[in-house]
């Protein structure tokens, strides 16, 4: 075995691969099952964007909180939410992470620091400010990260949150997942200030751009951003440029894409393929170890689907529970 050239130990390299692969297979399976009409509501898939979510979340602990988006499955898995609970939630079953009442866009697991996917664009940013303020007041080293897309970046909530985070020096990190399209509108058209980093500058916080398809680039950049926040350095913005393999939602005809764009992305810009090639080429990990993970992941996903399908729907009496919080 060669000496490990990477900034993660071998176990962590394998864990990162497992998380990315779990996200990919989870989404690929949903793509198929949604097409069959098995799943209620809408799903927005994270396939292709795994390196960003996992590269960031590898630095986080359970007391670090994240606020996700409508495209939240990847963030959930990367943050440690159980795929079987998630699958049941997406199927609307009572065994789901939120007892089947939330569905794809409202998966949450506070025990893992996952404050929720969110059906409202830009709504995660104020939540992250709240969590960051809590960490600051409680005096622990927790950070809060909000993810949003290039479309949601134009929401007032995001800009107000950046202002608040800056003036209170919160340990909040604003991650722009820029996959080039706000639903179907190209960023070229819809983002007037041209650069997300320029927006950070406007609030007096540093902003950087990183290749979101390169796990190690994200991992290293996120590490510095998170370290800065933990040490009291305040908020910052991290723009990850990434690739979305599927449409905005399942069923999106994607007429806004160039011919062959999806095929080219899958062939040449697949972040998991690139990660796998790097760790195998280094001689630290061999293909057999990764193939074994692939097989285990397939079993996890199949088990999750079976669990979801065989679980009961919420009953009528569940309609009146979880409506109000008792303190």
């Amino acid at each position: 075995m060669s000496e490990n050239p990477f900034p993660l130990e071998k176990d962590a390299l394998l864990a990162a691969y497992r998380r990315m692969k779990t996200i990919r297979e989870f989404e690929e399976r949903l793509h198929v099952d949604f097409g069959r009409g098995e799943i209620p509501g809408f799903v927005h898939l994270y396939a292709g964007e795994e390196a960003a979510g996992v590269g960031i979340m590898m630095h986080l602990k359970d007391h670090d909180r994240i606020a996700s988006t409508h495209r939240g499955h990847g963030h959930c898995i990367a943050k440690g939410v159980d795929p079987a609970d998630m699958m049941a939630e997406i199927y609307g079953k009572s065994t789901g992470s939120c007892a089947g009442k939330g569905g794809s866009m409202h998966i949450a697991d506070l025990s893992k620091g996952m404050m929720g996917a969110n059906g409202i664009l830009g709504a995660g940013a104020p939540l992250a400010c709240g969590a960051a303020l809590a960490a600051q007041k409680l005096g622990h080293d927790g950070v809060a990260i909000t993810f949003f897309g290039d479309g949601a970046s134009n929401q007032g909530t995001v800009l107000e949150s950046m202002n608040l985070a800056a003036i209170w020096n919160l340990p909040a990190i604003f991650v722009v997942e820029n996959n080039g399209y706000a639903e179907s509108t190209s960023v070229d058209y819809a983002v007037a200030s041209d650069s997300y980093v320029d927006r950070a500058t406007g609030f007096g916080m540093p902003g950087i751009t990183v290749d979101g398809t390169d796990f190690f680039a994200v991992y290293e950049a996120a590490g510095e951003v998170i370290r800065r926040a933990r040490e009291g350095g305040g908020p910052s913005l991290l723009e990850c440029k990434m690739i979305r393999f599927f449409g905005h939602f399942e069923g999106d005809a994607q007429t806004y894409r160039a011919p062959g764009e999806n095929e080219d992305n899958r062939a040449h810009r697949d972040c998991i393929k690139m990660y796998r090639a790097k760790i195998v080429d280094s001689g630290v990990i061999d293909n057999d170890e990764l193939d074994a993970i692939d097989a285990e992941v397939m079993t996890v996903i199949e088990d999750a689907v079976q669990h979801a399908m065989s679980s009961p729907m919420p009953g009528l009496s569940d309609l009146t529970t979880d409506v109000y919080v008792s303190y």
Partner: protein
Amino acid sequence: MSKVGIIANPVSARDIRRIVSHAGNLPINDRANIVLRLLTGLSAVGVEDVLVMPENGGIRHHLMRSLDRETRMGSSRFPGVSYLDMKVTCTAEDSAEAARQMREEGVGAIVVLGGDGTNRVVVSQCGDIPVAGVSTGTNNAFPEVREPTITGLAVGLAVTAQVPPEHAFCLNKLLEVTINQVRDIALVDVAVVAERFVGARAIWKTESFRDLFVTYGLPEGIGMSSIVGLLAPLDRATPEGRRVCLRPVEQTDWHIAAPIAPGLIKVVGIGSVETLKAGVPYKPGIGAGSIALDGEREITFDDSDDVAIGLRTDAFRTVSVPDCMTYAAQHGVMNRGARHAFRSAQKEEILK
């Protein structure tokens, strides 16, 4: 030949050095404004055509908005602006492709907005076309800090031959790095670091610094070349380079505090300093690591790779802005109106 190329890549100066050091961010609208000021300078001395790299980061939108407004207001202070027909990838590769196309188009010079990294990419592809850097990057050891209007004037005077080539252009050194016959270049510095992955590219962890090769190092320089600038300075013209073997600080008593990035002054351990001779291949001081070209990790290597670093003199041309403007002043190139009378008066003044 009066066509000039401009490369302003919005992805430059966006990297992690805004977090690990205090590097600034030049907003897109300011970058567009710099292009506008360049255009006024170029136009004022007779450049009629400017070819610009396309991008979708917003510079073009801002520039076109400004040019439309100026045209509506009756201004004729701008040359014709056209954009290259190329696919935009939103990466540094756009700068390389634009440089290739501008070379084929036969522009007289290429003006580059960026720092050491962007200039490196352009020089790697532009052949014998002279470049003129406008410092908008993270580290600006190569491009000099100057008002872009003046750079526009000087480049215009150079490409229209109002300043003769022997005054307008100067030759520069570069470092060639070959790994298993694959060649790359650096304009200012090649740093060898112990980290064996590329990751977020920038280098700032001094404990991993092992070897440094520079074409020049000025005492007032920024970035890795400042180490040489403070130890054993070397100017841009002298036909030699410098090599500094770097050590973790605990392994040597020879330390120097150097500004290795904007707002980041670090103590670096020094092993030895030697002169680099042109045309001689040098091996890196460690068997495995990565190579940072002008401040960014680009290539990893290990014992199985054949790595050589060499200095080339007279390797590429730049527009010498101070020399162009000095020539223009001495020869009255910018004089207008009662030119003869003014020049006579100037001479009389000098003769006094």
